[in-house]
């Protein structure tokens, strides 16, 4: 089963490269697709809708939640879009070149669960609506669905499943959208690779897992990442380490490192103040290093060594945190396997400073 | 009738070459009878086979009534055997599926020289009158050899080649059969070359020759 899923995954992510190189697509030249250029301002709600001229795109929600006992929970729901070829106006329906993939993951105090789905575009099985056209936001695949109640992204209800667990989320904005990089232009390498990238780090989340008397209610905060591009990785980039942190003092911090197989890694991020002001963090402003790697079972009959604990420091404000996973086993054994899960943030004294999500990709 | 000059024949056994006949010379007149004596393995049967054209010599020539037996094609030799020769062996080689009558007539039928009167004479002389409708396996060995003799004689061959014809019989019947045989050969005007190791049998013949070291020597 693994192998076939890997194939389907390649279909979504890498038409031109071999199956093993699952991130290859992100490095592809993207010829014939629209290119990401600086100086183009994002427009809402239009940019919540798909950008089919670009090769890849995602709607990526993570949520750090707590139950009544105060235990940590986490949720991830992602919709990926991929164009197999530059779209042509006359090709719709089954002939559409758009393919969709969706991931859902649940981190509970007892363990980590995930599910993956695929669908063809053009036939209505999966997609994202244009708010301007239909009056509400709707992103879905089969019976997984994010639907807003009005002509904005939020408030909205998100329903999905992880295995046989039914999950429903009530999402509300508690702050403004944040354009990452420079006005949403997020550079990914010195060679010019870039994406359009905005986030909604201020989401109040109320979640219900399961039904009936066993239903579990959770509360917490969510973070939506929206990104589209035709070429996001440079040829010498193998993967990334990504952090989205909700600090207890109300700040939000997004930091990522694109790992180069030669020379220095590409570091970038955004420091978001409670007021909504955001500041681009460049390579010199970020100090990121992994402090401990551990080997975990990754479900496909093998194990991987992953840098699971980190030390993150900023030059301005001058602060330093320790980041460690809630627990190690939050591996996404999907077509593109990666680690994505709840992390705890501590300050230099070891006191709790926040929570968040960490994503580690390209560790093969 | 039969003239052999400088006849040589050897056999290869594994890596040993055995010379059986070495420059053998031999003459035989028509209607004469000769006993071919010699130790076992001296090449008596080989000589007989060469004369009948059943085997080919290494060198030398065999002339039978002017024909070169050593070099004629097999089809001509088959013709020669059926028309001019008869072979009598220790094993009687009767055809088990045919009656005695048919066995007697067999070679005559092959060369289409069937003389019913002579057949009657042969049957009477060999005492086979009661056996005619029987099959070979119903006969004693002595009787079977008589049938073989009748078969060999019915077409009145020029030459009869016999290889221990009575070797399978006890002494008494041997003498009896041999007497009949040599008598029949004489009457038919055939020549007889008979391989034997028995002096008693050899005594029936006009001449006796001994094969030793690949050559023949007359025994007086």
């Amino acid at each position, binding site marked *: *089963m*693994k*192998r*076939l*899923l890997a*194939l*389907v995954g*390649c*279909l979504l992510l*890498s*038409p031109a*490269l*071999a*199956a093993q190189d699952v991130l290859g697509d992100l490095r592809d030249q993207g010829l014939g697709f629209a290119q990401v250029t600086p100086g183009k301002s994002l427009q809402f709600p239009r940019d919540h809708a798909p950008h089919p001229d670009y090769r890849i795109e995602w709607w990526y929600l993570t949520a750090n939640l707590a139950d009544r006992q105060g235990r940590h929970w986490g949720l991830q729901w992602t919709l990926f879009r991929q164009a*197999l*070829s530059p779209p042509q106006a006359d*090709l719709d*329906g*089954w*002939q559409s*070149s758009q*393919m969709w993939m969706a991931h859902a993951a649940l981190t509970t105090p007892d363990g980590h669960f995930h599910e993956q*789905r695929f*669908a*063809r575009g053009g*036939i*209505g*099985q999966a997609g994202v609506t244009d708010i301007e056209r239909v009056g509400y936001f709707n992103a879905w695949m*089969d*019976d997984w*669905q994010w639907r807003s109640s009005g002509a904005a992204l939020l408030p909205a209800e998100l329903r999905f499943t992880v295995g046989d667990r039914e999950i429903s989320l009530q999402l509300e904005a508690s702050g403004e959208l944040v354009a990452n990089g420079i006005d949403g232009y997020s550079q990914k390498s010195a060679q010019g690779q870039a994406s359009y990238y905005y986030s909604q780090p201020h989401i109040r989340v109320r979640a219900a897992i399961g039904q009936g008397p066993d239903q579990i209610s959770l509360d917490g905060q969510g973070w939506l990442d929206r990104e589209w591009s035709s070429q996001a990785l440079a040829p010498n980039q193998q993967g990334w380490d990504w952090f989205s942190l909700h600090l207890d003092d109300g700040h939000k911090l997004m930091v990522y490192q694109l790992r180069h197989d030669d020379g220095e890694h590409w570091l970038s991020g955004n420091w978001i103040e409670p007021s909504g002001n955001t500041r681009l963090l460049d390579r010199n402003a970020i100090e990121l290093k992994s402090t401990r790697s551990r080997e975990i079972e990754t479900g496909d009959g093998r194990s991987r060594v992953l840098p699971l604990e980190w030390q993150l420091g900023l030059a301005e404000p001058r602060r330093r945190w320790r980041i460690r996973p809630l627990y190690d086993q939050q591996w996404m054994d999907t077509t593109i396997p990666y680690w994505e899960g709840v992390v705890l943030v501590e300050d230099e004294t070891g006191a709790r400073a926040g929570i968040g999500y960490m994503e580690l990709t390209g560790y093969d | 009738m039969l003239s052999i000059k400088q006849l040589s024949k050897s056999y290869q056994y594994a890596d040993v070459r055995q010379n059986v006949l070495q420059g053998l010379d031999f003459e035989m007149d028509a209607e004469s009878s000769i006993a071919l004596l010699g130790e076992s393995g001296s090449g008596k*049967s080989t000589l*007989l*086979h060469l004369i009948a054209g*059943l*085997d080919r010599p290494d060198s030398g020539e065999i002339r039978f009534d002017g024909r070169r037996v050593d070099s004629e094609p*097999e089809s001509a030799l*088959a*013709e*020669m*055997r*059926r*028309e001019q020769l008869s*072979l009598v062996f*220790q*094993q009687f*080689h009767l*055809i*088990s*599926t*045919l009656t005695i009558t*048919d066995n007697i*007539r*067999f*070679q005559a*039928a*092959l060369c289409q020289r069937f003389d019913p009167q002579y057949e009657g004479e042969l049957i009477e002389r060999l005492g086979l009158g009661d056996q005619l409708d029987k099959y070979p*396996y*119903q006969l004693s060995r002595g009787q079977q050899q008589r049938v073989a003799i009748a078969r060999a004689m019915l077409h009145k061959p020029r030459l009869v080649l016999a*290889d221990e014809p009575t070797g399978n019989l006890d002494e008494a019947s041997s003498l009896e059969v041999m007497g009949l045989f040599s008598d029949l050969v004489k009457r038919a005007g055939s020549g007889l070359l008979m391989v034997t190791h028995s002096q008693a049998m050899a005594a029936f013949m006009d001449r006796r020759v001994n094969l030793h070291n690949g050559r023949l020597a007359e025994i007086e």
Partner: protein
Amino acid sequence: MKPRFYWILKALLSHYWRHPWQTLFLSVGLVAGVGLWSAVQIINQHAEASYREAQSLLGAQASYWIRSRRDEGIEQALYIDLRRAGFRQLFPLVELEVSTPSGVSIRIIATDLLALPDDAYSDSDSPGDFSDTWVKFVQPPYRAWVPRVLADELGLKQGEQLRLRDGRLLPPALIQAREQQGRQVLIDIGAAMALSGSDRFSYLAVGPISPRDYQQLAATLPDHLELVENQQHIDLQELTESLHSHLTAMSLLSFAVGLFIVFNAVRFSLWYRRATLLDLRLMGCATHQLFSAILLETLVWSLLGTALGFALGILLAHALLPGLGASLQSLYSATVEAELGLSSMTLLQAWGITLLGLVWALGWPLYRQLQQSSLESGSSARQQQDEAIARRRLALAALVLALIAVLAYGRISSVTQGFMVLGLMLFAAAWMLPLLLAAGLRLAAWLVPRERLTMRWMVSDGWSQMPAFRSAMMALLLALTANLGVGTLVDSFRNAFVGWLEVRQSADIYLRAPRLDIQQLKASPSTASWLVDSHHRIGITTRWRGRPTLVRGIEPDAPDSLALPLSRWQGDTPAAALQAWREQAGKVLVNEQVHFLAGIEPGDRVSLETDNGLQEYEVAGVFYDYGNPYFQFYLPDRVVASNWQHHYSRGIALWLNHDNSAAMQQAEAVLKELGAQPGDWISQAQVRKLSVGIFDRTFAITAAMNALTMIVAAIALLASLLAILQERLPQFAQWRALGLRQGEQLLLVATPLLIFCAIAWLLSIPLGALLSWVLIYKLNIISFGWSMPLLWEFMPALQLAGVVIVICGLTLLLVSFQWRRKMPQALAQLGETV
């Protein structure tokens, strides 16, 4: 191993080194027998495994189907709605039936591979650069995944586009296949819709589903759709059982023929090792040691025979499978995997029957030889007597077999029993053969004039050759009988089938376009110039007495309805019965399958489940329905329309005006105008070509088995002749010494051979007729439920005589070459004491 045992074994087995020809024949007999048997077993088990997988589709389990009750297909929007309602077990399928310009029928299956349930993705997919493969599969211009066997058959190369009869092109071919693809071409559903011009799915498949979800799904489905359980694996097993029994029977026959060769070779090996065995015993070897040595020898042969035979079986199965797979698909809609699956069980079974056969053929006679007194010599007189006794015993056994066959004949109720009776019959004939051969020799001897001594001798030499030829002749008899019997069956069937097609398919165009309005077509002024008559058939699919059943509503006054050929009828004449069916309510016509398999006679009443409850109909007649595995009922169309709300169109037949030479072109133009797609209709000639093509494919395997059996019998003959040559070389040499010519010598062998062959051939004619009679009038009816008249022709028998003569000629030629090689030495050894 004890040294003594080693020496015994060495002494015994050295025979096979000394006589490579006989070793070869023993191997050939074993390998051919095991090969033919295991080929069929492999095919049968492979097919059965495929039927079991009918629960799955393209690697995904399909427990249920969602179908349109009116055969109208399923709208895409509905499918999306169901998926969005959470029924992710569903996946859409489109099936298309197309044909190539040369008339090869091809089934296309299309799905959305991304929608298959997770269980669809097993480990069986081969590695490689799939990413590209998949992208190309789902994107225009798409790819057609063609199984290798089908590609080879169509001469289709990687990347080529197959052109269809109506000019459409399939996507570029990719030579590969998924599970359960069988002989079908797999394309993306988008490609299928582009190809067919339809935007509907043929049906939806339902993957593994929980009872709760099933309840919900059933409740959610709109009324015009039905959720039906996938019973295909059960149906297929039931429907195809007879076909597989037929094949098994033929393979066992081949195995038997192979065993005859083994018998032959064994007889020789026995004859030749008489002295060795005797010497061994005189030298003090215990019987049980010899016995063990022989047992070991048997074991070695069985392993050798199985290994090589099985390998041959795999090769044969590979060669035969595509044809059979195509037949199963066209007749039963069974998808047989194109790639062969092998089971170790088949291998074990093959070894089992090989060992059994060998113990019987080799072990037992050798053992018996050992039991004989060590000094008893096998004189020729004694041999002849033994032969005569053996012949009589065998004949007696044959009579017993024949008697059992006769007694059992009346009680045949299953296919297996039928084949057992046939087996008894054939073996009775085979065992009777030696006596008949002896009688034949006596007759020939009696016919030859007394004065023709050499001729009499040649005939009488048959007695000496008989032991060597006996089993070869039995093999030949079986092969000839099978050829004639099965050949007659196939010819009869073909004759009946083609004649029936002519009556049944009298229309010029067959149209399958559910949304085309026939009334509109008839009323249209544009049809007047070419359309003479039409027949719109409707129907439903149901189950009756547990078997898939078709209820058809046909127009009573349509030309083909008026001429429906009946095999049985109520009343005086078929015409009267048809008239009664047309004019009186409550009458039904049933196919022969209903008559033979369900025991329904004209005048009986049958109950059918309708929307208005159970309805009873009186059977007015039974119509021929060749090759149909299903029960079928014919009712007037208005009856079906009123009783089954969800009936659907089964196609429209159009009769053209034959005075109008452009009728066909006009018809096609109008049909296109009315929205029919090319491929929606097919002409009579094409239908017939397809039907007869399917027929011929079905029986291709029979012809192949027949030919192979004949080859095995030919090998048996050659083996016997060479054995005779070996055994009797000194005797032949002696006769050569008497002046026998080479030609006469060949004639000596050929005369009895020809007499024996003539007897076997003569006997095979009535026996073949009997075989075909039982096959046609008993087994075919029990198996398939339809009858046909036996068509006896003498030509095939004459052709077989020709084949036999050619075989004899060839084997004699081979033997005379051997002679030429060996005679000089034999002549040189003449007179030596053996």
